[in-house]
């Protein structure tokens, strides 16, 4: 099975993150950039499928030059190769345009199965899997906590607010996964060394047949007008429990009219 895993480089969600003051995009220059956490689960799932059923695992990333670091890191977990869509005109692209570019790249790669994280930690928008599936005319099985592959049939279990659903589709399909699906492996030393030699193909917009005017700020379908830092919360009253902590807590709730 030919599996493509979508990997996004994002600013570390454990550190301070900002939007740029000049063009309102995510400030990646000053951030510690890492693989989007959920994507590691997607990579793990792809590797498990390859180990059980054979095939090839390709990483697909759209992002600036520096995303190469994340691509190498992803490859060190075990995938076979990577494709990096990189083009200066992509800066400022909205989700709709991003899905257009990724769908064009996936069209060239001819994947049986596309796996991605359910959301990225920077945008948390959760729309790309369905946008890509809509463009490619393939099934989207989203929010998987379990994925079973039986020949060309995919079965996914996904959490819903009322319980869970079991959903099936035939390949080709897009599957997005939550962090409940598996436990991603750590890259081994051998894996890290091997990753340095694995092929990384770069593709430009011209290679994909997408016009620069369709992406970036020119092609954006939405715009950030302004952004401000929310004033940090400041701690209020803090007491030490001297035997009356529970009562005092309820007294506070009563003054705030919660009880």
């Amino acid at each position, binding site marked *: 099975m030919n599996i493509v895993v979508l990997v996004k480089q994002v600013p570390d969600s454990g550190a301070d993150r900002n939007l740029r003051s000049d063009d309102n995009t995510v400030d990646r220059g000053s951030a510690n950039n890492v693989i989007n956490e959920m994507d590691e689960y997607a990579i793990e799932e792809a590797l498990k499928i390859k180990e059980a059923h054979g095939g090839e695992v390709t990483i697909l990333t759209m992002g600036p030059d520096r995303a190469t670091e994340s691509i190498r890191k992803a490859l060190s977990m075990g995938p076979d190769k990577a494709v990096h869509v990189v083009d200066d005109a992509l800066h400022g692209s909205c989700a709709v345009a991003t899905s257009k570019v990724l769908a064009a790249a996936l069209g060239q790669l001819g994947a049986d199965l596309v796996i991605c994280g359910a959301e990225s930690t920077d945008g948390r928008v959760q729309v790309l899997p369905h946008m890509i599936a809509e463009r490619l005319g393939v099934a989207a099985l989203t929010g998987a906590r379990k994925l079973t592959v039986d020949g060309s049939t995919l079965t996914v279990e996904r959490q819903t607010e009322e319980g869970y659903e*079991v*959903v*099936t589709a035939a390949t080709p399909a897009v599957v997005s996964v939550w962090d409940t699906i598996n436990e991603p492996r750590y890259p081994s030393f051998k894996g890290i060394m091997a990753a340095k030699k694995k092929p990384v193909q770069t593709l430009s917009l011209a290679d994909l047949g997408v016009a620069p005017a369709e992406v970036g700020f020119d092609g954006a379908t939405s715009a950030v007008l*302004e952004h401000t830092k929310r004033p940090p919360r*400041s701690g209020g*009253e803090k007491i030490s429990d001297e035997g009356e902590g529970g009562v005092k807590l309820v007294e506070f709730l009563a003054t705030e009219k919660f009880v």
Partner: protein
Amino acid sequence: MSEVLVVVEATREFGVKKVTLEMLTLARELGTPSAVVLGGAGAAEALSAKLGEYGAEKIYAAEGAEIDGYLVAPKATVVAELVKRVQPAAVLLASSQEGKEIAARLAVKLDNGILTDVVALAADGTATQVAFAGSTIVKSKVTKGLPLVTVRPNSLTPAPAPASPAVEQLTVTVGDADKLAKVVERVAEQKGSRPELTEASVVVSGGRGVGNADNFKLVEELADLLGGAVGASRAAVDSGFYPHQFQVGQTGKTVSPQLYIALGISGAIQHRAGMQTSKTIVAVNKDGEAPIFELADFGVVGDLFKVVPQAAEEIRKRK
């Protein structure tokens, strides 16, 4: 005034979800609200009274196994057809997994911009979003097409405005391309009478400090006394204390209740990302240096196994 389409979220058990009522309330500021019900046979009938109570002037319904038996693709097709026909001023959906997924497909079908996790929407289409774990407020706008936005639960207070909507059944023609992801089973899990986590006005969450699954009874007891939902930190979920669907944080649910009580939660960024826009935050933790106290309006440094039962007892006394 132009119609504003509100795509209804409802559950089999509780009917119309609160976020739908919020969207209807918001829609009244932008135009004339029309509710769109997408579900199994008879779905609209069961929901129409409530939708009317909150100002739906019209209800469009697309019902049946063609709609309900597959993941969101048929629903997106129905809404896209409706948008082309009625040319609404805006389309509002819930910022839930399903709402975002329908919106995603709509955006591609209509070549239209999309904004998610919107907490306010002005009449000129300017949306307010909260980004980066609640640390950044963003004003944004759809610049191509109509405002297509998903609204975060607990963004505004629903206000009734009675109307008597007529139900218009939409003729649904769902093509094979929309039937690729088939739902073969829906399993309902016991939830009891607690409100849904993202919609609850009170959330009581437990973390690693709760110690084990059995001790979560303490968290549940306090939640029930306050009429709230139960949440859990990632550490608690990873340790198997509580199911994943209740996880609050960066890789779980984002909640924004009136009152958030954190029990035995240190307050790592992972967790804060999901709860720091809560109105009032209360924390109980034995470590006085825990970062959760930097957010808490009221903090108790102490043993939660002493503080929580005492608090529960005190609430019972006052009732």
